[in-house]
């Protein structure tokens, strides 16, 4: 599973400082640019659950923090890692960030977490390969007084210290609602998800289906497209042949969306409203093609690549004795035809996820472009 990303705005920081308990949230929307250093501070975050007391976790620095990455290899993870390392280098009380890679293997990740515990780290950040499998390992670490912060993808139960991420079901619902409105309550759609059986797509699609209830939206097919353009294009080409009328496409990731739109172009069919995330490839395609196809519209929700930065900051806050919310749910802003220009990065590769605090120069270095 690849992680999703989005953007929000908060006054989370202020809320936390004030010790605002269960539901501190405030928001201010930045205008633009959405990327760059402001991406984090301008994001909207909802705090949920009880407040985690910092006093219990307060320690004397310097700190050792471990990060168990479920896997690496897609550009989202690459940007996330870069941001996290950059953030770590800016904390004087953090000489050591130990990064371990689960290589997509559930049991390797459990082992990785146990190894971090035996290396006496003060905090463990984690993107889980499996929401259930890593829960016991994190619980054991938490019991030993280690601050444990899963982020991006959920971990079952609450036997970890704090969580940072988005709400996939809510995102799926919002995207579904946008598509429903774009189609004026009626039309035939197809849906493309990520890897077969992944929990993110399952939640997002469940949310979307709720949004379609009571409308005349007819779902012709739901298919896995692996969050890969080539796979999505192949699947969509089949669906195009089978269904003479496709009025819209629901996707939980924009690689799927871009592949689907390219299949429509190859079949010489007009582009239609489509949902997705902050993958630059689709934004560039929209910029290039929206003049040719008046019915081509986009509704996108990001999954911020800076979630790791917030996770690290949260860990350090706790270690310094500050309170934090149990869950920080990042609320992504909807990217549409109206505001996409604030997000698209024409000079950068398609693979860039644009909801990042990294500058264009940093991204160019990262993508060697």
């Amino acid at each position, binding site marked *: 599973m690849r992680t999703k990303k989005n953007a929000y705005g908060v006054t989370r920081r202020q809320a936390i400082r004030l010790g605002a308990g269960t539901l501190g949230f405030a928001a201010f929307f930045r205008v633009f640019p959405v990327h760059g250093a402001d991406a984090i501070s301008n994001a909207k975050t909802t705090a949920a659950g009880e407040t985690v007391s910092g006093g219990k976790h307060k320690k004397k620095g310097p700190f050792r923090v471990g990060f168990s990455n479920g896997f*690496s290899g*897609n550009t989202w993870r690459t940007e996330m890692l870069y941001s996290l390392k950059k953030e770590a280098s800016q904390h004087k009380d953090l000489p050591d960030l130990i990064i371990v890679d689960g290589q997509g293997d559930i049991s390797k990740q459990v082992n990785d977490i146990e190894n971090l515990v035996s290396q006496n780290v003060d905090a463990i950040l984690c993107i889980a390969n499996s929401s259930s499998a890593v829960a016991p390992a994190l619980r054991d670490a938490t019991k030993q007084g280690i601050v444990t912060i899963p982020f991006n993808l959920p971990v079952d139960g609450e036997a970890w210290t704090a969580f940072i991420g988005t709400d996939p079901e809510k995102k799926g619902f919002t995207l579904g609602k946008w598509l429903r409105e774009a189609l004026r309550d009626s039309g035939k759609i197809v849906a493309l998800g990520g890897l077969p059986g992944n929990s993110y797509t399952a939640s997002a699609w469940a949310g979307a289906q709720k949004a379609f209830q009571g409308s005349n939206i007819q779902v012709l097919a739901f298919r896995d497209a692996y969050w890969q353009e080539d796979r999505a*294009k192949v699947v969509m080409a*089949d669906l195009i042949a*089978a269904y003479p009328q496709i009025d819209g496409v629901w996707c939980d990731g924009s690689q799927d969306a871009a592949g689907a739109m390219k299949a429509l172009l190859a079949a010489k069919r007009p582009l239609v409203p489509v949902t997705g995330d902050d993958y630059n490839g689709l934004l560039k395609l929209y910029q290039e093609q929206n003049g040719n196809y008046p019915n081509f519209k986009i509704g996108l929700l990001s999954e911020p690549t800076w979630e790791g930065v917030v996770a690290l900051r949260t860990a350090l806050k706790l270690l310094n004795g500050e309170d934090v919310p149990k869950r920080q749910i990042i609320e992504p802003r909807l990217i549409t035809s109206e505001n996409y220009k604030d997000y698209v990065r024409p000079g950068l590769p398609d*693979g860039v996820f644009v909801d990042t605090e990294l500058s264009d120069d940093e991204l160019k270095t990262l*993508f060697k472009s």
Partner: protein
Amino acid sequence: MFMISPARLSRALRFVNRLGAVWIAVILLYLVSGLISPGMFQINETLNILQIAAFLGIVAIGQTLALLVGGIDLSVAGVVTMSNIVVTSLMLGQSETLVPSLLISILLAAAVGFINGSLITLARVTPLVATLGTNSILFGASLVYTGGAPHGSISPAFAVCGQGHIFGLPVSTVCWLAIGLVMAWITRQTTFGRKLYAVGANPAAARLMGIPVNRILISAYVLSSVMACLGGLLLTSYIGLPSLGIGDQFLLTSVAAVVVGGTALSGGWGSIVGTIGGAIFITELNSFTNIVRVSTGSRFVLQGAVIALSVLMYHLVGSKRTSS
């Protein structure tokens, strides 16, 4: 009224048998899927299937050679990914860089095949382990080379191979069939081809006959890698972009296409023409399960069941065959 006489039917069956039983499966699946989902009968969808089948088809031609010599090549997935990453990062959307970047990709793939072959023949590593290891190394190398953030794109001229049409046929299909014909000729009509079969059937006997077994094995793996590279390049041309996960889908589907096409996992038996049918069959099946209204779980069950059934049928129909 037109009647099919038993003699004529039997002649027709013999003809199909000579081609390979997989073609019966291809036609049957086409008819059944078309009756269930009429979309399958559309000319556009048929051309679409042939276009998509080309990528798997070329990779599977290479896999056939590895299986013919009694081995297996699981590094094809890594080679496809490597070719995709290398060619996009070197081409950078320019036409001037087209030829050199294609050549470098092919040479790299040949080097990978040479390493596979050397590991298997000189270091005596089991083909499955050697090529799976190479596959892992190639994925890691692609990750290191790109830093996890691939960039680059293909030149518009190159896009024609994967996206264009010629005389109404997808260019990728034409490339595939041309490569298939050449490889079929090499395996059936040249002494090198005969040696491939001999080495796969019985390496010890082949050695006694004076066949340079190691050289033949290494050549088979080099050709397998080069074919995987060509398949990867066509797929790259189809999508235009680098993608680190692009080759994964071929790891086992390439073996499935070859086996469905009638090539024996034990070596020494099989044909390129059968593999072409196998690749069409697998792609047809994917397309059908994409179109038909079933849940994700049912799709996988359906795909597995149909593949198993077709192999069973192959054994039943193909067992009377005298030549492959």
